[in-house]
């Protein structure tokens, strides 16, 4: 017997060979190979836009490859839809959950099951599965009362109840606290130990090193490496993903000399706008000129409500609650707050920070119409708006196919550089930015973070709302944590540890 025969003893559970997927002119996957062995936690690594989601959608039957084949336990496999994938034993947990907020846990699970299974049986089965895998869940709780981590558990339980051989998890920890992520890792190890395989999509290198047995790395749609992440360093994995070393943020002077208070919240409370919104409870905050203050927290703990109250998209009835450069601004709308020297970058770059179908020059007008000298007598100076868009693109290295394309046609990272640069070039006295580098590749992230720090060092007050703890530690001088609409007192970044932030994110900081 030759060695080839020995190798063939272990047939991959699922294999993809020379997969090509083309969207228009873009080769989203270009000859990708992937082998998932039984019992293994397999990492799929890559930056945003590297082709991870495209590949996974083909493995789950949501997309059909243009070229290449799939094999399941050595046999050719054709998937014409997710139902076919589930039938062979492939389950998937998406990054964005598909749960009905007004139904309870058992009802949500029942929706994914055959119609003839009684709710009682489902309830019992949920209890059994959640006990077996360490996924505590109360089947009778309505979904809208659950945290994001608990919602993810529903999705995982729902997936496990179909008894899959392969479970695909799309960026599962991006919404979890460090402690919740630890719990998830224990669950994943149990799942692998009983003979199932896990395909784990992530760009967080530390956790991949920690729990994954094999890693497949994609870059620009091509397979760049297949390795054992436990034998690599975070830096070497990052190099594979990005193709170059990443610059870290320079702090010109490590000790900050805070200037006057430029932005202040004084006991801000707001009732929730609707059933699923979070109430803001007694939020107080001071941001000095010269410093970057970061607000950490798990998504859905009041960040979007807080941003709306800060920007003036939602106003408060007591004007003194929000102060910009000591001027009461609580009753002012977003345009008036901009006139006071504040600038805002919301989390959602398409549809909130920009209008997707308008050109970049028009999008310059979106936030600059009252402050950038673009409008006189109600008429827009289109030439000047175009010039400003070009200045922004040049200063922030916004890459685009033509001079003034529609915002929606830019890649996520380039559009993010544009919407951040648009506010930055106005040299605001106060900059409030939510998720500045969400979904942005490493190179662009470094540019944006550096620009935020530099702006603060020129005397502006910079407030960053972020879920990315690496980012927060990289740029923040002080860190506060938001949980269930309450903000912890921001403390110097040096005094904060990952563990402490994790506890605050989980709601351990309210006793005072």
């Amino acid at each position, binding site marked *: 017997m030759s060695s080839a025969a020995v190798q063939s003893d272990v047939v991959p559970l699922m294999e993809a060979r020379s997969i090509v997927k083309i969207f228009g002119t873009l080769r989203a996957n270009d000859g990708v190979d992937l082998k998932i062995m039984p019992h293994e936690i397999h990492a799929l690594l890559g930056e945003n836009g590297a082709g991870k989601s495209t590949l996974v959608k083909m493995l789950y039957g949501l997309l059909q490859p243009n070229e290449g084949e799939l094999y399941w336990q050595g046999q050719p496999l054709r998937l014409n839809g997710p139902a076919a994938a589930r039938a062979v034993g492939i389950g998937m947990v998406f990054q964005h959950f598909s749960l009905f907020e007004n139904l309870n846990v058992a009802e949500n699970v029942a929706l994914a099951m055959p119609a003839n299974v009684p709710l009682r049986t489902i309830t019992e089965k949920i209890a059994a599965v959640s006990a077996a895998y360490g996924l505590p869940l109360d089947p009778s709780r309505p979904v809208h009362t659950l945290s994001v981590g608990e919602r993810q558990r529903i999705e995982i339980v729902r997936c496990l109840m179909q008894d899959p051989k392969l479970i695909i998890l799309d960026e599962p920890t991006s919404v979890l606290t460090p402690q919740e992520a630890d719990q998830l890792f224990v669950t994943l190890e149990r799942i692998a130990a009983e003979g199932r395989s896990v395909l784990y999509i992530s760009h967080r290198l530390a956790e991949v090193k920690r729990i994954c047995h094999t890693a497949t790395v994609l870059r620009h749609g091509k397979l760049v490496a297949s390795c054992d992440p436990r034998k690599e360093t975070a830096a070497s994995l990052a190099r594979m993903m990005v193709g170059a070393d990443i610059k870290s943020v320079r702090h010109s002077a490590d000790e900050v000399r805070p200037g006057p208070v430029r932005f202040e919240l004084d006991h801000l409370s707001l009732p929730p706008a609707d059933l699923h919104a979070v109430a803001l409870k007694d939020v107080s905050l001071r941001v000095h000129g010269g410093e970057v203050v970061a607000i950490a927290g798990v998504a859905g703990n009041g960040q979007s409500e807080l941003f709306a109250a800060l920007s003036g998209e939602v106003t408060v009835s007591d004007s003194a609650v929000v102060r910009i450069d000591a001027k009461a601004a609580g009753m002012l709308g*977003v345009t008036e707050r901009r006139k006071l020297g504040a600038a805002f970058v919301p989390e*959602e770059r398409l549809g909130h*920070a920009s209008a997707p179908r308008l050109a970049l020059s028009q999008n310059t007008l979106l936030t600059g119409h009252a402050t950038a000298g673009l409008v006189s007598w109600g*008429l*827009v100076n289109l030439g000047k708006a175009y010039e400003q868009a070009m200045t922004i693109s040049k200063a922030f290295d916004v890459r685009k196919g033509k001079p003034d394309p529609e915002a929606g046609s830019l890649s996520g990272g380039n559009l993010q550089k544009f919407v951040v640069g648009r506010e930055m070039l106005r040299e605001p006295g106060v900059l409030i930015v939510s998720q500045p580098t969400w979904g942005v590749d490493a190179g662009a992230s470094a540019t944006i973070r550096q620009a935020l720090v530099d702006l603060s060092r020129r005397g502006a007050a910079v407030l960053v709302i972020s879920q990315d703890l690496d980012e927060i530690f990289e740029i923040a001088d002080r860190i506060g944590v938001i949980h269930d609409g309450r903000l912890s007192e921001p403390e110097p970044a040096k005094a904060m540890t990952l563990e402490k932030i994790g506890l605050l994110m989980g709601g351990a900081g309210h006793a005072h």
Partner: protein
Amino acid sequence: MRIELQRRAERSRLMLVASPLIAIALTLVSAAIIFALYGKAPVDALYVYFIKPLTSQRTALELIVKATPLILMAIGLSLCYLSNNWNIGAEGQYIFGAMCAGGTALLFQGTTSPFIVALIILAGMLGGALWALIPALLKVKANTNEILTSLMLVYVADKLMDYVIRGPWRDPKGLNFPLTADFDNIIPVIVPHSRIHLGSAFAALVVVITAVLLWRSLKGFEIRVLGQAPRAGLFAGFSPARMTIFVFMVSGALAGLAGAGEAAGTLGQISLPFANGLGFTAIIVAFLGRLNPIGILFAGLLLALSYLGGEAAQISLKVPIGITKVIQGMLLFYVLACDTLILYRLRLVRAEPKAA
């Protein structure tokens, strides 16, 4: 084999222009088939319907008369639709505007003055604007669906008009026909030997002003942003509520102007039936014109042609006048269907073998 719609990466510029032309072509083909079913020679019938009205000076000028109210109303509607406000009730605003203009004219019977004419026009615009304000306020204050309220107000306006023309405003010398007396103050004719009145000049002016408003002014930017990306509009500091009030009132005022022009210009009186669905045809004009003022200008002329052609076909081909409505309906149907091509491409797909 099956036909599949495949999403395009971005909107097709070619189809943006070509889609209304394809729609017109499909409408002509369908119209030809209908004429053939009536036993008429399709080519001749199409000639009578779409070409012949343009061959005489009288009917060519009449085209402008017919197009004027359509263009005025469609421009107003386009501002509504661009800002994501679904005003379906131009017909009602047109009727109520005409009523206010007519009432003003009847009030000043016996004396003539250009100021009275101006007052008649203003009354029409104000009436239309107020009628449109109702669904706008209901939407802003009570979160009602403006499609339903604006549509239902059409029938309210229609019945009101019916009441005043058959009742208090009926011409005593009118042999009991439902019509008012001839107005003493008339919107002046501006082209000799035609019925083209000052309203047509207003319509041309409105086209130009709207083009500047939409493409050069902050207000136009606001309209487009709030329509395309409401959340970005809020972030820009624009108010959707104020926008709803603004576009409804502008749209209503333009429909009222059209109504005043028809009553106190083209007809010189109000007679029943008055509106005949012109306000609904204006919806077709707005979409066929791509919600673009210049496009609406041409679309208005085309739809006006379909009215004239329908009358000509009824007389010389003996086909029912209802054909006009059928052709207009098909045109709207094809326009909306062809718009799919802007975002999607058609693809022939061979049936895939079943998965194992």
